[in-house]
Structure formats: C-alpha cells, structure tokens
C-alpha cells in the first residue's frame, strides 16, 4: 500500500462527527453558561477600524507584499523618470526633467564634472529644439512657447557653464595636475560651446519666416550667451597658459599658440554679433585646431 492510498483512506475518517442532538444540546448549554454572568459589549465602528488597520499593517509587512510594494515603487519611479527623460517642453514631466538635471548637477562635487554635465544638458536642449522644429502639426503659438522654453533652458545651461568657469578661474592656485585638467576642460568647453552656438543657428534655419521673426531675439540672446561662455573658456585657457609660461609648470609639454591663448579681436566681435551667423563660424576657425594642438 502506497502512502497516497494510506492518506486517501485516512481522509475518509472525516466522516466521523458528533451526535447531532448532543451538538445542539451542548450548544444551548454552553450559551447559557457564558451569558449567565457576563454583560455583552457592543462592537463599535472604531473597533472595526482598528481591526482593519491591524490587518492592513500585517499584510503590508508580509514579505511577498513588501517585495511587491517595493518593486511597484521602484518600477513606478523608474517609469516616471524614464518618461520625464523623453518629455518635451510643454509636457507635464518636462519640469521634472529639468529638476532632475539640476539635482544631478547639485549632487556633483567637482566643478569640472558640473561643467561637463551642463554642457551635456545644453546639447539635450538643442536636440529638443531640433524635434520641436521638425514637428509638423503644431500650432505656431504653441511651437513658439516650446522653443522659447528650450532656448531659455539652453541659455541657462551655457550661462551656468560660464559661471562655473569663472569660479574655477578665480579659485585658489591649483596643482600642476589640476591645472592641466582645467586647461583640458576649458578647451573642450570652448570647442563644444562653439559647436552648440553653430548648431543653434542651423536649427533656427528650420523655422518659418514668421517664427524666425518671433524668435529672433531669443535665439540671438542664446547664441550670445554661448559665445560669452566660449570667451570665458578662452580666458581660462589664457590664464592657465600664462601661468605655464611663467615656468610654474615644470617639464612643460604644451605648445601654446597665440590665437588660442589670447581672446583675439575676432572673438570680441562675436560677442557683439548677436544672432549673426558668421560670428560663430569665426570662433570655430580657431577652435578646431586649438583643441588638438594645445594638449598633446
């Protein structure tokens, strides 16, 4: 006989039950006994409330429920962050996206990393601008508002890059290694901001004439900010190079060219050229070579 058969025959013993007359007589007897000397208290609504809270609390701390809850919160927040990442100006989550970017910058300790992040975010703004410009079925007023928002954020990003650079420039004298890093960063910023300014100009070409007229000032302002940032970066390069030329860095390995060390008159003119397409191209002429030449 197998265990399975034994269990089956054991389960047949479930049929055993007490006599029905005893069952009901005993029931009456017990009820009489328990109600003889004890007053009945009514269960109040708050007893049920307490009970519900207790049951809910117990359920909440059950491992499976707790795991599911954590998973839900985690995946929910990841989905929101992910959705925010792909949001566009005008979307509800766009503000969250900007806030997340600002938080990312705020929790970064190194100034160089902050600059890198801001540059990255400025690039993101341009990608968004590109998408907005390409949107076909959008009301021109809405489009204007979206472009305005993106360009404003772009400007904020490049302005804060400029602020960071100035902060680095005015900070305490650095070690040889740090100075080298700063120089590299300044060159990258200078080159990339220049590219961004150009890109911004190009993207504005995709706008209709009416949009160009409307957005002209905003765009020019953003380009000017980008160019100011380029100048700041160049100023930093100049400052660092000057320190090097004074022999502060031993075993010098840099080859410094005049046109990159000093912001030349062309660069200054760019600052005034608000919105002029040629301005950003002029910067690029010098930058494309300097980035590779200065640091070997």
């Amino acid at each position, binding site marked *: *006989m197998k265990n399975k058969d*034994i269990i089956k*025959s*054991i389960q047949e*013993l479930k049929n*055993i039950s007490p006599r029905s007359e005893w069952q009901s007589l005993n*029931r009456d007897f017990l009820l009489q006994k328990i109600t003889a000397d004890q007053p*009945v208290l009514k269960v109040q609504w708050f*007893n049920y409330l307490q*009970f519900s809270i207790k049951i809910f609390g117990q359920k909440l701390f059950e491992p499976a429920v707790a795991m599911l809850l954590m998973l839900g919160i985690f995946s929910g927040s990841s989905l929101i962050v992910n959705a925010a990442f792909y949001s566009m100006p005008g979307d509800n989550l766009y503000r969250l996206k900007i806030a997340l970017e600002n938080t990312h910058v705020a929790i970064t300790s190194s100034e160089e990393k902050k600059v890198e992040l801001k540059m990255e975010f400025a690039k993101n703004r341009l990608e968004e601008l590109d998408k907005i410009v390409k949107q076909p079925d959008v009301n021109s007023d809405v489009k204007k508002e979206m472009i305005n928002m993106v360009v404003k954020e772009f400007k904020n990003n490049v302005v804060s890059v400029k602020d960071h650079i100035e902060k680095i420039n005015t900070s305490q004298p650095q070690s040889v290694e740090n100075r080298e890093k700063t120089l590299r960063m300044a060159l990258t910023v200078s080159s990339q901001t220049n590219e961004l300014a150009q890109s911004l100009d190009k993207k504005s070409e995709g706008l209709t004439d009416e949009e160009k007229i409307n957005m002209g000032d905003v765009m020019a302002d953003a380009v000017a900010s980008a160019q100011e940032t380029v100048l700041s970066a160049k100023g930093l390069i100049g400052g660092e190079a000057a320190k090097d030329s004074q022999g502060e860095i031993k075993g010098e390995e840099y080859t410094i060219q005049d046109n990159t060390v000093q912001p030349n008159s062309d660069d200054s003119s760019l600052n005034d050229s608000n919105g002029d397409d040629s301005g950003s191209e002029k910067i690029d002429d010098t930058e494309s070579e300097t980035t590779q030449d200065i640091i070997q």
Partner: protein
Amino acid sequence: MNTLKFKEKILLLRLKKKDPDAFAQIYDLYVTPIYRFIYFKVSTHQDAEDLTSEVFLRTWNYIVENDEEIFNLRALLYRTARNLVIDLYRKRARVDLVREEEVLLNIEDDRQQSLLSEIETRSDMKNIEMFLRKMKDEYREIIILRFIEEFSIDEISKILDKSKGAVRVLIHRALNVLRDLIQKNEK
C-alpha cells in the same frame, strides 16, 4: 488571507466583546473537527463529548479574560483540546496510583472499553481507524492534524509547539509506522 481566516478574525474581535452570537458561530464552525480530534485521542464517545464541551468553555474564558492577542483561533482550540486530553490522562493516572483497587477496575474497564471499541471499529468503521488507534499517540495526533484536519506544517508546529522540521520528520515517521501496521495485517 483566505475567507475563513478573515471570518475567524472578525469572530475573535466580537468574542473579545463577549458576544454570544460570535461564540455560537465559532462553536458551529469547529465543534465537529474538535470532537473528531479528541475522539481519536480518547477511547469513548462520552469522553470525547465532555472534553469537546470543555474546550469551548475554556477557550471562551481564555479569550474574554486575557488581553493577549490571539493570532490563530483554530490553533488555540486544538491546543486547548490537546491540553485537556493530557490533563484527563494525568488525572486518571494519579487516581490509579492512589487507589489500587480502582486501578484494577480501571484496567478492567479499559480492557472492556478497548474490546468494545475494537468490535465497534471492526463493524462500523474503516480498518484504518483501528490501525490509527494502535499507533503511538504522538503519531496518531500528527496524522489527524495533517491529513484529516488538513493543517499546514506551520499551524501544526504552533499547536504542538515543535519546529517545522520536527513536524515534517514526525509526519514521515508516522506514515511509515502506519504503513508497516497495515502491511503486517495484510500478511
């Protein structure tokens, strides 16, 4: 949480407030399984009935007089039943030691009871009950709890105050003993 457990919790809440209707519902819900559980532990229907009645009364008193939170009413009922059966055997054993004359009578009575019980089981019940009654109380108890009352390992461990591992081992051994008994009888 399944419906029975939820219902049990609500009944417990009302029982704390000395609600006789809740008590009546609990009685209706558990009188048969408690009776059956006791019946396999004692030899007569009379003892089973008396102890079953006592189980419900004791449980009522325990719930209304103690502030201690009860997590599993079913387990509490079975634990009470188990303790009452143990008390009964202890009481009988003590009386047996003190009054020798009665011991003889008791032995005679027990013999008669078991003979009667055996006849009864052979005629009315399935053979499996007879084999169960031949088993050690510990094994019989675990088989009833697991396969007749269908308790989980966790619940059995709470009723018997043993670890889950010990409960699993006990179930395995009890089944082996029962199978051996059945096989010996078949031979």
